[in-house]
């Protein structure tokens, strides 16, 4: 027998299926609104005459314009966007001084993403985070699903949450809802699981499908990926790059069993009309394949984009003009089989340094004879690589981040380690986990990124925890930020 309580919960928990408007609805609504507004103007004019007359008769009565709620706004997050000067993100990017993975970013003059005006749903399970801007006024946005396991493979339960303070501020409800694409969770070739924003308007939800917005939220426009799966995406202020792959992975392992990779690009903005086209890469790299499941890694930083190919070669392109990719060199190792989220578990690439003195970091699984399982290499340009040192970690590296201070932060399947000297020495990060003391979440982290030298975010492998982790002391300590409304 179903209890009354269960029945109410079932009913309340039911999905709201969108009901799309018939063609011409908005035009009809506008006409009706104009007609009514005309009538209102007539009525208001008559009312004003009365008020003015009264004021003249009783001059001591003060009167003026009253605007409840302070200055008028057309609609938060839609029409109040000022000119975007620069943008950035932990994994998305910026313009001008081009930003990228783990790069320090110029503060963004922004307003906000398009709020959904609803709180993040309960049971929100984050799978990806991106940060727009940094310092005071940045926005961290997290994408994930809110259904029970398996539920989101067929139901559009993708949600996005945003925060101005990583969810660590004094406000109890510092996470707000962002209007998300109508999409299920990742399953084979459909659904989305990752998020990037180039600025507060232009963003992409991807992995394996691809949707784009130019208004910071709905409407999200499905993008043609030509039957391929999007396994990586980064953006500058004016251009986005993505790795499209031929994959055979099932379910949430959408990025597994990928055997062919291609780099695609699209201009930023006007998401409803732009098409993705093959990027200008040397002919041998139009379709990158090693003949067996592999991965590719894409980072943007220091004014340059870098692509680590499945065969371990490094392509680079200037992001300040032309966007033509060329072969820069060969890395000391190559990517390996990816995680569920698309991150490769072999080589991890990150961009650091400055525009005038860029620096690439690359983790490789230890060479035969090496005392440790993981080693860090550095390069100024992707052409020449130098061993910086061994990385004493016990888990498998999953994500690497860097900023201008030569700090390197490495996420693994057991925790996070950080280096303040370009990878020469490493320390294990400490974690705050409620009353249970300090330990990393089971399964470790699938992603880590630094927004500046002090602040960073990390996504646990176990999305069911419903939280991301944040650091405010350069990666020394991390604490969970539950994504709740």
């Amino acid at each position, binding site marked *: 027998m179903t209890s009354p309580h269960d029945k109410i919960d079932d009913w309340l928990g039911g999905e709201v299926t969108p009901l799309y408007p018939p063609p011409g609805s908005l035009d009809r609504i506008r006409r009706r609104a104009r007609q009514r507004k005309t009538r209102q103007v007539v009525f208001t004019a008559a009312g004003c005459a009365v008020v003015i007359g009264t004021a003249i008769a009783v001059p001591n009565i003060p009167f003026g314009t009253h605007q409840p709620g302070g200055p008028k706004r057309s609609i938060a997050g839609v029409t109040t966007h000022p000119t975007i000067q620069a943008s950035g993100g932990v994994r998305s990017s910026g313009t001008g001084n081009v930003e990228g993975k783990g790069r320090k970013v110029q503060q963004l003059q922004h307003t906000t993403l398009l709020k959904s005006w609803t709180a993040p749903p309960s049971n929100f399970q984050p799978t990806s985070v991106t940060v727009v801007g940094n310092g005071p006024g940045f926005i961290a946005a997290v994408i994930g699903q809110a259904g029970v396991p398996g539920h989101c493979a067929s139901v559009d339960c993708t949600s996005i949450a945003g925060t101005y303070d990583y969810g660590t501020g004094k406000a109890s409800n510092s996470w707000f*809802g962002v209007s998300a694409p109508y999409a299920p969770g990742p399953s084979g070739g459909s659904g989305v699981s990752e998020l990037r924003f180039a600025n507060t308007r232009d963003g992409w939800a991807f992995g394996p499908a691809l949707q784009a917005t130019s*208004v910071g939220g709905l409407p999200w426009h499905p993008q043609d990926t030509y039957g391929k799966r999007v396994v990586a995406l980064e953006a500058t202020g004016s251009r986005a790059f993505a790795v499209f792959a031929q994959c055979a992975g099932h379910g949430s392992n959408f990025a597994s069993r990928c055997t062919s990779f291609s780099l695609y690009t699209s201009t930023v903005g006007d998401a409803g009309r732009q098409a993705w086209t093959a990027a200008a890469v040397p002919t041998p790299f139009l379709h990158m394949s090693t003949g067996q499941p592999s991965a590719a890694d894409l980072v943007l930083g220091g004014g340059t984009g870098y692509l680590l190919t499945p065969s371990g070669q490094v392509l680079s392109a200037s992001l300040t003009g032309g966007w033509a990719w060329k072969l820069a060199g060969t890395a000391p190792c190559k990517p390996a089989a990816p995680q569920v989220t698309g991150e490769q578990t072999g080589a991890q690439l990150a961009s650091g340094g400055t525009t005038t003195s860029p620096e690439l970091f690359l983790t490789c699984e230890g060479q035969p004879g090496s005392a440790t399982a993981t080693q860090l290499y550095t390069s100024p340009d992707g052409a020449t690589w130098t061993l910086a040192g061994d990385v004493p970690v016990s888990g498998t590296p999953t994500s690497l981040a860097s900023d201008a201070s030569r700090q390197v932060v490495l996420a693994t399947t057991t925790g996070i380690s950080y280096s303040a000297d370009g990878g020469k020495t490493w320390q294990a990060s400490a974690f705050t986990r409620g009353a249970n003391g300090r330990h990393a979440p089971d399964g470790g982290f699938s992603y880590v990124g630094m927004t500046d030298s002090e602040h960073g975010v990390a996504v646990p492998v176990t999305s069911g925890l419903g939280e991301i982790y944040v650091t405010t002391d350069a990666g020394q300590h991390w604490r969970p930020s539950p994504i709740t409304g």
Partner: protein
Amino acid sequence: MARLRTSDKQAVEDLFNACYPRLAGWVRRLVDDDETAHEIASEAFTRLLSRWSGLDNPQSYLYMIATNLVRDHWRKTGRERNAIKVMTAAGPADPAYHPAQDVDVRALIEELPERLRSPFLLHYYGGFGLKEVAAMLGRPEGTIKADLFHARARLKAALGESGD
């Protein structure tokens, strides 16, 4: 009369694209009829556009209008239902009527007092947080919380009485 500026027109279009499908879907769950849902959603947007420049939170305004229109729709259909069966608490009980046999929870929500129904719909159905609902209805957050508790208690009791 000044027409909407270009930026406002774009904002309206953005809001329409962003909100209409969910708003109409939200209404459909309440009225169980696509055509009525479109009528109510369209009317909500029409009223929104009629006073576009004076709004600080258009989405909240949309849902408030829609909630009121749904309430009006329920009143109308309730009157029609009453023509064939007595449903009001003041009237004699109809032994053939059991809430759970009607349209389940939705029918019971129709019977909630206005004081409880609006916060219930906005919070549980519209997805607005307690603070937002409190601001929209002009009541203290604690009052909204209590109203939601009482609304759920009434629904639970009604469903229990219906023989479930």
